[in-house]
């Protein structure tokens, strides 16, 4: 309605102030309703019990703020020429294309930088730790990108697979005492199996329905982990998860008789940095494998079918593509990488509990994919660095960083719904030079 009015106003060159005022008034009314209970009244301890403190000035500020803000927004919308938006979209597309082109050169450079990071003069334990966290989220983002970016399946419960990976790793490692390198693929396999099991019933659903059901499944997994005490030790979590070893050489200070650890084997002084740097390289390698895999599978028929399904499922059916199987592979492969990241998380922390796998995790990973630009590998890197690195750096701001995070998401969704760097390069090109091999006679 408002948009219609806006178009009309833009065409006529006049602004309908009455409509704008009405809109702003309505927003202010809602703000009033909310503010009166949320900021208007506050409980305080007074001598002799709990009392109420009224803060009317805050309510006034909130209402006036909302009114003015809404007014300004509506005014801007009404007066802006309609072509502007398209122009901006185009400009952003160009930037996206440019970044993508640059990524071809900058990508390997970034990898080299990432490898060199622990050896930089400025680097310390704190920096390597944050870098590990960022790379872990990059890997999760890349994993989810297969599901959301390529196959277009909005999965709000990705953390479920992350949890399955972490728990499978922890349980196998604790109960069967298998080494990291055996547990890791097993955990990935378990997560992928879960992907198939969960995917099978839900992938018939579309769009919003799928999102809601995956959200539910994510929560169910967490609740099961929380309540199945005999198996998962519920809220107590699993501790004493074995730390990864350097191909059999543990990173421990004290060594048992007749055995060696990393530092004795290489004749180094013991340093706790060894393990931290090793973990960093481990996740870097896992993430790079995820990326290589994605880049490769995009150019295979199944990858193209994912993208085609995202574009138009009906057309895919009419071309003989089995939509359920194709979506299931995307779901399972995405889940597998989530599982790998989960096992890494478990081995790094040494302790896991259901608390680490709440919906907020899913939301953060999804935010990385969506902000970066769905389907864009480099976009995920940038978004992860900004979101995870940024929130870590601004830890002092406490709850405000989540507010900023939410605000950023809203802005992007309004401003550029397909993500900042959404730009897609074709997976193959027609080289027009070579003559057609099977060409019959030319066009009729």
């Amino acid at each position, binding site marked *: 309605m408002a948009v219609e009015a806006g178009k009309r106003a833009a065409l006529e060159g006049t602004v309908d102030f009455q409509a704008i005022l009405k809109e702003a008034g309505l927003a202010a009314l809602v703000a009033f309703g909310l503010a009166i209970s949320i900021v208007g009244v506050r409980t305080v301890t007074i001598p002799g019990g709990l009392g109420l403190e009224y803060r009317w000035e805050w309510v006034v500020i909130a209402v006036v703020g909302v009114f003015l803000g809404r007014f300004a927004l509506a005014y801007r919308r009404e007066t802006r020429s309609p072509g502007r938006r398209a122009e901006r979209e185009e400009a952003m597309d160009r930037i996206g294309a440019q970044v993508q082109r640059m990524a071809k050169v900058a990508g390997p450079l970034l990898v080299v930088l990432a490898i060199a990071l622990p050896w930089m003069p400025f680097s310390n334990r704190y920096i390597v730790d944050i870098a590990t966290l960022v790379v872990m989220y990059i890997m999760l983002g890349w994993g989810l990108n297969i599901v959301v970016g390529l196959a277009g399946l909005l999965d709000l419960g990705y953390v479920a697979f992350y949890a399955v990976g972490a728990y499978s790793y922890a349980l196998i490692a604790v109960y069967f005492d298998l080494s990291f390198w055996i547990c890791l693929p097993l955990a990935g396999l378990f997560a992928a199996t879960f992907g198939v099991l969960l995917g099978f019933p839900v992938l018939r659903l579309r769009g919003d329905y799928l999102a809601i059901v995956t959200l539910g499944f994510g929560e169910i997994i967490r609740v099961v982990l929380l309540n199945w005490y005999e198996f998962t030790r519920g809220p107590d979590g699993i501790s004493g998860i074995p730390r990864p070893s350097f191909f059999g050489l543990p990173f421990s200070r004290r060594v048992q008789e007749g055995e060696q650890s990393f530092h004795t084997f290489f004749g180094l002084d013991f340093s706790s940095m060894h393990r931290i740097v090793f973990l960093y390289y481990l996740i870097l390698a896992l993430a790079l494998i995820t990326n290589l*895999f994605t880049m*490769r*599978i995009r150019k*295979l*028929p*199944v990858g*193209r*079918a994912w*993208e*085609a399904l995202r*574009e*138009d499922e*009906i*057309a*895919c*059916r*009419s*071309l*003989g*593509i*089995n*939509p359920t199987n194709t979506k299931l*592979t995307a779901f399972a492969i995405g889940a597998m990488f989530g599982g790998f990241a989960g096992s890494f998380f478990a081995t790094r922390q040494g302790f896991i509990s259901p608390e680490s796998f709440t919906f907020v995790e899913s939301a953060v990973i999804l935010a990385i994919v969506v902000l970066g630009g769905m389907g864009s590998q480099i976009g995920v890197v940038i978004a992860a660095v900004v979101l995870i690195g940024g929130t870590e750096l601004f830890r002092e701001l406490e709850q405000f960083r989540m507010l900023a995070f939410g605000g950023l998401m809203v802005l992007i969704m309004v401003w550029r719904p397909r993500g900042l760097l959404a730009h*897609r390069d*074709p*997976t*193959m*090109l*027609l080289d*027009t030079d070579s003559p*057609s*091999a*099977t*060409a*019959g006679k*030319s*066009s*009729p």
Partner: protein
Amino acid sequence: MSVATAETANHDLTIPSGARALLTVEHLTMRFGGLVAVDDVSFAAGDAEITAIIGPNGAGKTTLFNCLTGFYKPTVGRLTLDRGEKQFLLERMDDFRIAQQAHVARTFQNIRLFPAMSVLENLIVAQHNALMRASGYTVFGLFGIGGYQKAEREAIDWARYWLEQVRLVERADDNAGDLPYGAQRRLEIARAMCSRPALLCLDEPAAGLNPRESAELNELLLYIKQQHKIGLLLIEHDMSVVMEISDHIVVLDYGRKISDGTPAHVRADPAVVRAYLGEEEDDEIPAEVAADLAEDQDPGADGSGEVRGG
């Protein structure tokens, strides 16, 4: 509501040219609640010829296609596709299996491309199943073993061949969504042909094309018929297209078959004239249809009469 025919349904399965029946539709009925969109329709479509399905708006043409290609499960009816070596009962198959195994390809009334993918990619996706096999269901392709590279090159050559047929070689690497309307229609046909169909169903391929594009389309369809020897099922409103290129015409009105035969037969059938030059007022586009029909009819038919359809 004026129903065109009150007589008993016509279950004629003959193909005027005497060609082998590729598709046989028997007693096809599709109900949506109380609405009978396709009502006890039977006809046969010959191999290597163009069978046109015509009829006014809402006659049930698209619904017929949707039943054929498995998007709707028919309420009643049998749909047999006879590829000589093998028969398929389409009404029992899933939509994607119909395309995959029976090799029925289709286009859509409102174009359905993969807009964010390149033109070439659109054509490669159409060859999905063959390429899937060549890539060892992804496993071998991932590690670059097996004949995937070669299969992909062949797929590109096949795509290039169809790009040449629809004059889109220059646009091969552009996004399909960026093509002008007429080119999108041609691309959709090329994409369907890339899947190597035995039967190609085209839902109003000439809609929105200018006369020159429309003439080119006729040539393309004739070329496909002659060169590739496949059956074509064509929904079309443009009478000039239909009369010129089809071998066989089936006319639907309110879900029922009202006429079936050669273009000459259908043109002269009074039931068709009645359906097209009915007495209702809500005419949409049909000026040219009316003109075409009037032209083709005996001079007595009044071209300026109220026309339903479009």
